[in-house]
């Protein structure tokens, strides 16, 4: 579903965010992306979103090569991908409902469909009763859940999350992770960037670890523990 082939990204200021990164994420997988800030996590996500172009190598998402994606097809590409941001990027000039409805309105869904799908998504994240509120009135955890509802309302095949639990306490983080697991169970491919090592260990999912733009390890945390010799490479605590 997501395929990186020797991808490098060098910014115009000379900073090399990624150096020849290759990996494959199959449809329906749930994968974590970890590494210190500056390791290249955000750049990797931006490449998948076609917000950046790789300097070398190829990025394939759902079978299409993003190097050959025309500018006018970028919006259509992004509609296949749901994104959850650390700072949730909600709009405070409209209600929770309208925030979640935005991707549907953009994609041209008929209004009756919009209402139904938005309520289903809000129900899923447990915020159906707050659809008329302004996101400013909600707590941090609730705002994040609105962001998740907006990311999944379009029923994307791929869900990207950039530090989705970065500002949340452990209990709320666990709730968010549980939501992600549920999406994964119905077939959504997830790629979640997080530097919360404890959380990754609990999830028992494949982890891509980046350091200074290179892929350091690509393993499931339990394997790291049972096999200490390899494990220390991917785990910095």
């Amino acid at each position, binding site marked *: 579903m997501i395929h990186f082939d020797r991808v490098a990204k060098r910014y115009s200021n000379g900073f090399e965010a990624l150096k020849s990164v290759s990996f494959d994420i199959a*449809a*329906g997988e749930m994968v974590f992306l970890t590494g210190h800030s500056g390791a290249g996590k955000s750049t990797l996500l931006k490449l998948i*979103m076609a*917000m950046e172009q790789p300097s070398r190598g190829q990025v394939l998402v759902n079978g299409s090569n993003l190097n050959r994606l025309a500018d*006018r097809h970028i*919006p*259509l*590409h*992004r*509609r296949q991908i749901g*994104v959850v941001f650390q700072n949730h*990027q*909600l*709009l405070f*000039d409209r209600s929770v409902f309208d925030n979640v409805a*935005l*991707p549907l*309105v*953009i*994609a*041209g*869904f*008929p*209004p009756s*469909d919009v209402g139904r*799908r938005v309520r*289903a*998504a809000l*129900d*899923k994240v*447990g915020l*159906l009763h707050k659809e008329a509120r302004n996101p400013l009135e909600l707590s941090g955890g609730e705002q994040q859940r609105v962001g998740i509802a*907006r990311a*999944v*309302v*379009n*029923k994307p*095949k791929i869900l990207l999350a950039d530090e989705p639990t970065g500002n949340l306490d452990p209990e709320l983080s666990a*709730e968010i992770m*549980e*939501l992600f697991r*549920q*999406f994964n169970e*119905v*077939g*959504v*491919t997830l790629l979640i960037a997080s530097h919360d090592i404890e959380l990754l260990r609990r999830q028992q999912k494949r982890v891509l670890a980046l350091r200074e733009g290179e892929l350091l390890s690509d393993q499931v945390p339990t394997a790291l523990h049972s096999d200490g010799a390899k494990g220390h490479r991917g785990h910095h605590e």
Partner: protein
Amino acid sequence: MSRARKAPLPTRAGARPKVTGVSDRARAWRQHHGRSARDSLRRLLVVPVRSTLTVLMLGIALALPALLYLALANVGQLSGHWASSHQMSAYLKAGARPAAVEALTATLRARPDVAAVTAISPEQGLAEFARQTGLTGALANVKNNPLPWVLLVQPVGTAPESLATLRDQLAAELVVDEVRLDMAWLTRLQAIMQLGQRFALGLGCLLGLGMLLAIGNTLRLAIENRREEILVVKLVGGTDAFVRRPFLYTGLWYGAGGGIWALVLTQLGLWLVSKPVAQLANSYGSQFTLQGLGAGETLILLMVALIIGWLGAWLAVGRHLRDIKPQ
């Protein structure tokens, strides 16, 4: 998370129609247009003073060339009036016999380019002169009337060339001494009018350009204010057209407001000068009344305002949206 159980979302990855059909998509598209239009208007009404000032400025910029155009149209109408009332005076030779005068009058009346001929005898001329000057007593003693026969010829057309032809042919008649037709002022007036029209056109173009820049600058601020929203819309797959739409409607609203103000200001300008003009016309014994904008001209003014508003927005949005890219 027990509430999660009843949620039907999401089903299976894969074959999920994004939109049920073309008609649904068209309906959603129309609805977004309606929503953009309403939303743009609402945003303008939230800041009534700023919006009114912008729209008033556009109105003034449109009213100026419109008033100039009206002034020219009225002068044109007036000059047409004069030209049509302009008649030739053919002074016949002294001692022309009444029979010859009658014959010439008949010939002229038969011509297709002559509307009317009035023959004034020397006696009538003298009486008229006496009445106008108040010299009745003095002129009664004049033995030899020095005035000739005069034929007042009213031409059909007003075109300078046909008038000149008629004058030349009239002058060629044996019995005619001299024909008076002052065309120089007509030609000059037409040249001045042409100059005025060019001036109005140039002024209109300059002011139109100024309006484009003003709308562009106003829209630049509006775009800057909604930067966050534009970024999010782009991130969740909004096309450029989707992002542009509300701003284009903002431009259209500005244009509509500016057009309406321009009409109001034009009417106000007309009303201000209509009374003095009527007095002036009255003093000349004329029935002249000022002409306002017709239905067609009103429509053109509004269309121009809308087009300028839309175009200004298009240019501004095209320039500034490129700068706003998700980071």
